[in-house]
């Protein structure tokens, strides 16, 4: 494992789901490579996601019924599986975002108090 990865933030399973969902919601249908690239871009390379760990998250979301995968073709005419957020997924995104905001606010408040 390189130094860079040691610096990167370890993500909890649930938050990864949330991030992926958000990405798909804002960017529209993406395939796994696109999602991974986008995540790396946004997090300024702090988020070093093993590309492979994205797949369990995608499977999970698909099994929840929040995203749907269909095979398609990229611009360079390679085949790839595009994932799209579903209506249930939109709803879940709203709920999960709220939960996350509430929770992080609470944690933030507790940390402020201690310091």
């Amino acid at each position, binding site marked *: 494992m390189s130094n860079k990865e040691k610096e990167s933030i370890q993500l909890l399973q649930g938050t990864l789901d949330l991030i992926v969902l958000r990405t798909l919601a804002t960017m529209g249908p993406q*395939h*796994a*490579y696109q999602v991974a690239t986008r995540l790396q871009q946004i997090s300024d390379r702090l988020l070093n996601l*093993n*590309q*492979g*760990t994205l*797949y*369990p998250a995608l*499977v*999970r979301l698909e*099994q*929840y*019924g*929040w995203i749907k995968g269909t095979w398609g073709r*990229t611009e*360079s005419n*390679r*085949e*790839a*599986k595009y994932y799209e957020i579903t209506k249930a997924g939109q709803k*879940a995104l709203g709920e999960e975002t709220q939960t996350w905001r509430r929770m992080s606010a609470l944690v933030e408040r507790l940390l402020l108090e201690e310091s």
Partner: protein
Amino acid sequence: MKHLRRIFLKFYLLFANSKVEAELAREIGAHLALLEDEYLRQGMTPEDARRAARLAYGGVEQATQLHRDERAFQGLGQILQDTRVTFRQLRKSPGFTVTAILMLALGIGATTAIFSIVEGVLLRPLPFPDPDRLVILGDVLEGSHCASCAPSSVTAPDIRNYMRATQSFSHLGGYRGRLFELSGTGEPAAVNATRMSGEVFAALGVPPLLGRTFTQQEDEEQQQVAVLSYGMWRSRFHGDANVLGSKIILYRKPYTVIGVMPREFEFPLNPGHVNQSELWLPLSLQPEEFTAGSAAAWNSRMVGRLKPGITVEQAQSDAERVARETMRDYPAYMRSLRIHAVVTPLQEDTVAQARPLVRTLLFAVIVVLLIACANLAGLLLVRAIRRRREIAVRLALGARAATVLRQAIVESMVLSIAGGAIGLALAAVALRVGVSRLPQTLPRINEIGLDWPVMLFALGLALLTGFLCGLAPAFAAIRTSVNETLKEGGRAATSGSGHVRLRSALVVAEIAVALTLLTASGLLLRSFEKMRDVKLGFRPDNTLAALYVLPQHRYGTQSAIDEFTKTLLNDLGQLPGLDAVGITSFLPADGNNWGIAFTIEGYVPPKGAGLNMAAMSLVESDTFEALGIRVLRGRVFAESDNAGSQLVAIVNRKIAERYWPGQDPIGKRLRRGLQETSTPWMTVVGEVDDVKLGSPDAETMAQVYQPVTQTVASEGVFASVGELSATDGWIVLRSRMPPEQMEDTLRATVRKIDPQLPLYQMQTMEQAISKSEAPRRFNTVLISSFAIAAVLLSVLGIYGVIAFSVALREQEMAVRMALGCQRSGVILVILSSGARLAAVGCGLGLLGAVAASRLLRSFLFEVSPFDPGVLAFSAITMLLLAELRRRMIEKSLNPFRISLGNRRVYTTFAIELKTLR
């Protein structure tokens, strides 16, 4: 909701594995391709790009594994995978699979069948609501050693007193079983009926299927109503829904049917399935049942339901109080009798006698199961040892020990579940065939069957067996030392001391256990033999017997009864081919032998000796000759011994030796009842041989015979007003031809005198004896079958282990023979190594046999636990087994097989020798 969907998908995807894997591979491939493009664009060479893509991706195998873990229940998936692999492997070795499954089927099937008996008889709660509150209330009459009486019974006055004066019961009533003549529709038949207080239905609390049950008031008003059992309703009335209100004729009196009980209802819970009550009638105690002799007749029982919150002990002290009052009110002729009240839970009362038998059967069958399991464990162990190279390779390649362990257990479980399923089927067949053959001493036979608890038991047993049997070889497998196994290339002779010890332990255990069971069965067989050797005291050949009961309705006076008896004996005496005809109240081997108390002239009983009890048989005509009872002294009864003449009696040898040892009993006097009862003396005019009234292995009772015509006269104060004698009896015929041929003639003769009078329980005396031996025969046959099965299984197991150990040591034997050892010497080597095992096994087996015989003591009859015959039998069996073993070893040591191994040895040797030089 999301979780539900996910769980379903996770489970489903277990089975769509290949499709999903292909999809995943496709997706990963696409992802890698895209990554590659990116790197190509950045200017890398194609190979570098490909490598970088893979690196960036981070490990395809790991990703695939993560995906797998996420998408389906992996634990379950692995087990499914293991199961598929196991099926494949088992199919490849059919011999092993079939043997293992059959062994398990035998063990689990037999255990399940016996457990269904245990469950139906002992464990299942009684078929009444809240059955723990039901109790039997009765007296224990001090000093009455009546072996075959019901353990706690009551007299008619007791019923009245207890019902009136106790406070601890919400419902309490008395009951008495009786044979009734049912006529009117079709052939007159005998039905088992129970006369019950109305309160008993209330106590039991089971609502009727149709109509209603009778109340205590109807009982006291002596209403002639009847409640049918489900069985009788279906068989005699064909399930007619309009049966209520119709009349049935019992002993020529009409009774109105007012209700039908449901199918599961059974009361009283008598042992066997021929004694079940088909009809319930009000107890309707008559005034004469409270006086004279009936007041001292303990011929009924009581059942009650405890009030909420009352314990058995409290009820017992309550009843004891009433008992003491009852004793205070005893008439003069019963003054010296003492009773204690006893309250027993109904469940206990029902099953207590059956418990030893059922327990013994359970132990015996568990022994068989254990041997089957040991065999399976041994077989699996051998298999594991054979595959140790494969396992070593797998372990070296990185398989986890847990995986190997899990596979071994899955294999074992697959075998045991298959064996369990077949065993369950076998048990079902056995039960269907065997329930009718169960001995008549088991209560609740109708409840024995394959119901849910039994099937769950079978399943649980199969799983447990599989798990336990799989553990031994599983641990052996993972303890495989990878290095050594791979190095040696499979030439190791014994592959680790752990395996050897395990195998030895299994063999020793099997030998010991089989020997124990063999000895137990030997002891039982001996007891059975001894029982058949017992002198019965009468000659059962060529004798036919049948019971008749004269209904009071038609035979209401003594003269009518006497007229019938005279005509009957006359007509029978004129039949050709008959040597003797008699009528008696007690038929030998029938088991019906309740006793009466009597007093001997001049005999002072030692302190605390209790009452003198004897079975009193009332006889008519040439009963002694008809039954073939030997007269030892004096004479038999004659026509001149009748109601008006001097009261006479005949005693059996037991009485003569007990009360007049060394003296001639002729001329001595005795009488019915106790010291204080005023009854006239009877003079002894003859002494006869002891007769077994019950089964041959029961104790001989004291027996007194008297002419039936003198019954009432001899009863003195016990006689009720208008009491009739000779109202029923067993007709006994001794014929010159086979007794079966006399059956129709007898029936015709009786029918000519009274066309409506049925004859009950017609049987030859040989049949009667066979019936009385049946319980012991059942035990012996069953346990011997188990013993044989155990021995066969042990032999099978030992053969497997020996064959394998010989095969393992092939190389060693080859070396020995190459070095000049003779074949016989080689055999000796193998034999001696196993001889010690066998000796230890035999030693343990003998110890086990001693222990078993102490447990069996109640079942043994005139056989000591150290019976030399049985020990010799067991020793001979072991010697035979040893001989068998030797032959098996010889056969296994096939010279050709060794020479094949030899070649390799020779070559290696040659090389080594060359290098030495």
